[in-house]
């Protein structure tokens, strides 16, 4: 018998599909990403092992081995930058998640006002970061609204130099970054809360748990996989963030609000030391790649659980 049963013809199609029937469909993306993502990364790595300035950026490069990396590591300011990065990313991730969770919990009722408020917050999240950064620079200025309000209620007598004091500036920018990421986290977590079954909620209410216990023992565990994914996303968001730093402080005063990726940018485009900029950028890229692997693993675990 040569007649194919329907089952086996499906199998034939299926295996052809899976083996490479769809390979043509990825060609344009592979082409674009090879030219504009992979090749630039390769160039970045090359730059970091050469001496490249504004004069020879399109010319001949001289290989200097690890000299750029050694120079960065021995720079006395480098430690400060690493601490800045840690503090900045720590605040954005920690508060971004907690306040995102808090917002999702507060909006987790069937009221129109909650839906509207969440939609409004997501709208602000979607605004150009440069707009949000500008308005916060304005609000946090010496004569800005925040200082005026705090003085009106007599909490402070002198305006706080939110963006001009090297001790405060990093926290101010980190808080604004937090503010910018909360709507997204709240949106995703609120959706995750929907998967909590009504029966469990009712049962817990009949058992007389307090609202805090309900959050702790019902909502928190059921949204844990989502929280894990969001934690990595927020961490990467905080690490990559440059727009608010660029707009509000440009890394200053001094080096106070420079994080690792931002320092790479300053070295390359302000000091025109492209090779040191590239070396710092490469370190940043390696760090995010590590996080990417972690994220990829946890997302695929979710997918397998479907």
């Amino acid at each position, binding site marked *: 018998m040569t007649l194919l049963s329907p089952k086996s013809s499906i199998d034939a199609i299926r295996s052809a599909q899976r083996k490479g029937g769809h390979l043509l469909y990825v060609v344009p993306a592979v082409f674009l990403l090879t030219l504009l993502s992979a090749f630039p*990364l390769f*160039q970045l790595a090359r730059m970091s092992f050469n001496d490249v300035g504004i004069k020879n950026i399109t010319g001949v490069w001289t290989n200097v081995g690890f000299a750029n990396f050694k120079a960065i590591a021995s720079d006395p300011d480098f430690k400060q930058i690493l601490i800045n990065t840690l503090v900045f990313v720590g605040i954005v991730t920690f508060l971004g998640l907690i306040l995102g969770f808090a917002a999702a919990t*507060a909006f987790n009722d069937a009221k129109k006002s909650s839906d509207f408020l969440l939609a409004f917050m997501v709208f602000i999240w979607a605004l*150009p970061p440069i707009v949000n950064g*500008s308005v916060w620079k304005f609000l946090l200025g010496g004569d800005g609204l925040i200082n005026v309000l705090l003085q009106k209620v007599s909490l402070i007598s002198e305006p706080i130099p939110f963006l001009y004091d090297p001790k405060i500036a990093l926290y101010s920018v980190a808080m604004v970054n937090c503010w910018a990421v909360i709507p997204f986290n709240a949106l995703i977590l609120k959706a995750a809360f929907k998967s909590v079954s009504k029966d469990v909620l009712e049962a817990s209410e009949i058992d007389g748990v307090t609202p805090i216990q309900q959050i702790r023992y019902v909502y928190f565990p059921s949204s844990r996989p989502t929280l894990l994914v969001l934690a990595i996303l927020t961490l990467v968001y905080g690490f*990559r963030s440059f727009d608010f730093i660029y707009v509000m402080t440009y890394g200053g005063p001094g080096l106070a609000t420079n994080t690792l990726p931002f320092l790479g940018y300053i070295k390359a485009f302000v000091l025109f030391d492209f090779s040191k900029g590239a070396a710092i950028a490469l370190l940043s890229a390696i760090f995010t*790649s590590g996080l990417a692997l972690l994220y990829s693993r946890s997302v695929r675990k979710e997918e397998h659980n479907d």
Partner: protein
Amino acid sequence: MTNAVKKGRKKSRGIVRRSAKTIFAFFYGMPIVWIILTSFKQETDVFSTQSSLFFSPTLSTYRQLLTSSLFESFTNSIIIATCATVLTLLVSIPAGYALAHFSNQTLGIGLTALIIFQMIPQTATIIPLFQIFNKLGMLDTLPSVILADAALLTPFAILLMRPFFRSIPFALVEASQIDGASSWQSFSKISLPLARNGIATTATLIWIISWGEFLYAVNLILSPNSYPMSAILAQQVGGFGIFWPGLMALSVLASLPVAILFIFTYRLLREGLTLGAVK
């Protein structure tokens, strides 16, 4: 437990919830109110506390702003965002479709590569992109920004669309092929229409992000005359002695297209983001 305790809890829960909502409403409403109010102020009104809420609104800032050069940068923004969106969709839709149906090791490697590309800081990629476009003689052109944006957003777009293609039962695709449809036909006639929500969500987000992108624009475009809106804002806010009403009016104008788009697509975005972020 007595009903009284239950009632008390319900009440206190309501108070906590309401105060939390008020706080969020304040911190997200206040900046927007402030942008809009300031854009209608005169310079003298900006920092005088008496006129912070009550002042005679003026359109003079908007009148000063609305010149032909602003119109030009608005056009540049539209060109960059629209071209970047079209280019990104052209390469990402087929890729998202294909990756939804692969199931082997290549898939894992491909997805991980996309996530790595997506997460690399823009402040890192701009360094080699500047060098490459410099060498190609493409600096100071809109296509350089469009290509850079497309490279930035393609991994994001593929990863966002893939779950939409995955949610289409594969049996539908198979059935169409048993009926004799070619691979391209089952893609374009079956999968594409069914994934339209995902495509619309992705298109909206890409457009919004490339509309607001400024780091590539500021560094790849050399003459401020050809800046898009976002780059003009970046340039102005960095300067000394900022003219706040002007900057806020510019912010309003730069936010308007996003606001209009957002009103029409919020429902879509809500579903799409939720699906794309965790899957």
